């Protein structure tokens, strides 16, 4: 995959991936060996070969299967680039032909050096192995293809949601910011200039399609920029208490993770309150896990309730989940007079660790 130079791409981007697993990776080779050994064990147990004894049978079957599997893996690893350029049907046909040929060759060699231990007829032995290989390979290909398609769909959906979130800059925020800038242009041109730069930065963060995962420091920067913009408008009604010094700045997070949470906290918890309020952002780093907590006061009950924006929260949950799986959690809820959102995810600095 072609990664943009600075950050890994968001899921679903770049050229279509091959549906086959990567047989070049060490962990996959290990899994293959494990599957071979288990299959050999299964066959040895089922056969109860009296002539050879259990251990010899297991050893020979293992050797036979490992030869096939490792040669097959090596071939698939070498041909990976070539296969990924072919259509699904063509690559599947090639893999089938290749494995059947491989098994037939290995079977022939095994028969030749079989030391008469095999009671089968030569041709029948080859034909049976080729048949088994054909069926197993076909089933495996089907399985790989279906799971790959499923994962691909999940990624596409997640990508669509990122776009929905990006397109979601509240029009009110835009026009109010413009109004603030128009006011500052008269009274305080230097601050007006700052505000224009901040606004530009926020839009860049929101519009940048290439933003997949970014360092936490950068996301905190975007959130602080947002705070500065709102501060101009809301004055001392808005206070944000940042306690994030203990967080590793190079931890990777999906872009627009913290900023939408701060935006929601201000929109629901501070703006509707005549006296304003305090938003607290707390970061903790403990045993390889990062915890970020955003708290805001709940709006007063008698006042106009604003339309909720559950979209942002669901979206962040999904994208963190896509990046970190089960190890990432997002919790949100009302506790007494506060609304609290808690993000928890493992500390990583590269996608490979994730």
């Amino acid at each position, binding site marked *: 995959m072609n990664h943009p130079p600075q950050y890994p791409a968001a899921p679903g981007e770049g050229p279509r991936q091959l549906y086959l697993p990567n047989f070049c990776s060490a962990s996959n080779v290990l899994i293959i060996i494990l599957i071979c050994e288990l299959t050999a064990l299964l066959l040895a147990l089922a056969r109860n070969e009296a002539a050879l004894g259990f251990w010899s049978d297991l050893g020979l079957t293992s050797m036979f299967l490992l030869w096939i599997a490792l040669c097959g893996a090596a071939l698939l690893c070498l041909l990976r680039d070539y296969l990924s350029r072919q259509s699904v049907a063509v690559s599947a046909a090639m893999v089938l032909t290749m494995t059947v040929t491989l098994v037939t060759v290995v079977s022939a060699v095994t028969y030749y050096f079989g030391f008469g231990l095999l009671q089968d007829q030569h041709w029948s032995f080859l034909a049976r192995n080729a048949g088994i290989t054909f069926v197993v390979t076909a089933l495996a290909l089907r399985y790989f293809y279906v799971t790959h398609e499923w994962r691909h769909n999940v990624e596409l959906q997640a990508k669509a949601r990122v776009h929905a979130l990006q397109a979601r800059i509240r029009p009110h925020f835009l*026009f*109010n910011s413009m109004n603030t800038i128009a006011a500052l242009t008269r009274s305080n041109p230097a601050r007006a200039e700052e505000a224009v730069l901040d606004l530009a930065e926020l839009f860049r963060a929101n519009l940048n399609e290439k933003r997949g995962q970014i360092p936490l420091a950068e996301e905190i920067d975007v959130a602080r920029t947002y705070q500065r913009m709102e501060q101009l408008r809301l004055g001392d009604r808005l206070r944000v208490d940042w306690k994030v010094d203990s967080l590793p700045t190079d931890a990777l997070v999906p872009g627009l993770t913290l900023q939408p949470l701060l935006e929601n906290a201000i929109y629901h918890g501070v703006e509707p309150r005549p006296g304003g309020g305090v938003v607290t952002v707390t970061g903790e780093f403990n045993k390889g896990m990062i915890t970020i907590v955003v708290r805001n006061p709940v709006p007063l009950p*008698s*006042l106009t309730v604003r339309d909720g924006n559950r979209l942002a929260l669901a979206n962040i949950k999904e994208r963190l989940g896509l990046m970190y799986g089960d190890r990432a959690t997002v919790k949100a809820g009302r506790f007494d007079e506060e609304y609290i959102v808690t993000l928890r995810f493992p500390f990583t600095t590269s996608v490979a660790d994730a």
Partner: protein
Amino acid sequence: MSLRVLIVDDEPPARERLSSMLAEAGDFVLAGEAGNGEQAIDMVDQLTPDIVLLDVRMPGIDGLEVARHLATLPAPPAVIFTTAFDEYALQAFDSEAVAYLLKPIRAEKLRAALAKAERLSRAQLQQVATATRTAAHRSHIGVRGRDGLRLIPIEEVFCFQADQKYTTVKHLKGEDLIEDSLKTLEEEFATNFVRIHRNALVNTKYLERIARDASGQHFVHLRGLPDALEVSRRMAGDLKDRFRI
């Protein structure tokens, strides 16, 4: 004589910009600046401005609610709404205010709106106020006391009762005198209040039961209010049928 303008906006930079534009607009003077809805209603009371530049979205009592309160005044000021973005409400703003302006506001649009407000006669302003009152009811009743304005949420009101001159509003936290007439209140709150007598309007949410005393007079009991209220004979049957009490 130049017209006096009150600026209402919760955002300091927005007020600042409007007041400096107002200074350049010519024939208008700044009467004052309010930072929220309650303050705005209070300041209109005290300063009686001719024109109010009113932000629609504010914390607490929003601009629309302020406009509804101003519309109940005997001599309502000309209201000009200002808003950053409200896709759905723009048409309403047009009929319930003299004009609306979109932020950031252009100087010439502000001048045009102010000029329009200046041209309107008292009768035309009353017409806008009536349109505002009929479009939607207030969510709070304003009580003007010595300590300034207090707002009572309409859902906390048991009933309105009319004397010769004043109207009493009975609510969860006590009772107060207001200047609104029973007739205008009945029109405004037709959806959740019902007339039970020549001199009383009750919140249907609190209706409990109807009783009759020895003389044949009907009384209605409201949940949470100790004293029963007289019901006219004509209304008694009607109430029983409509509310199954």
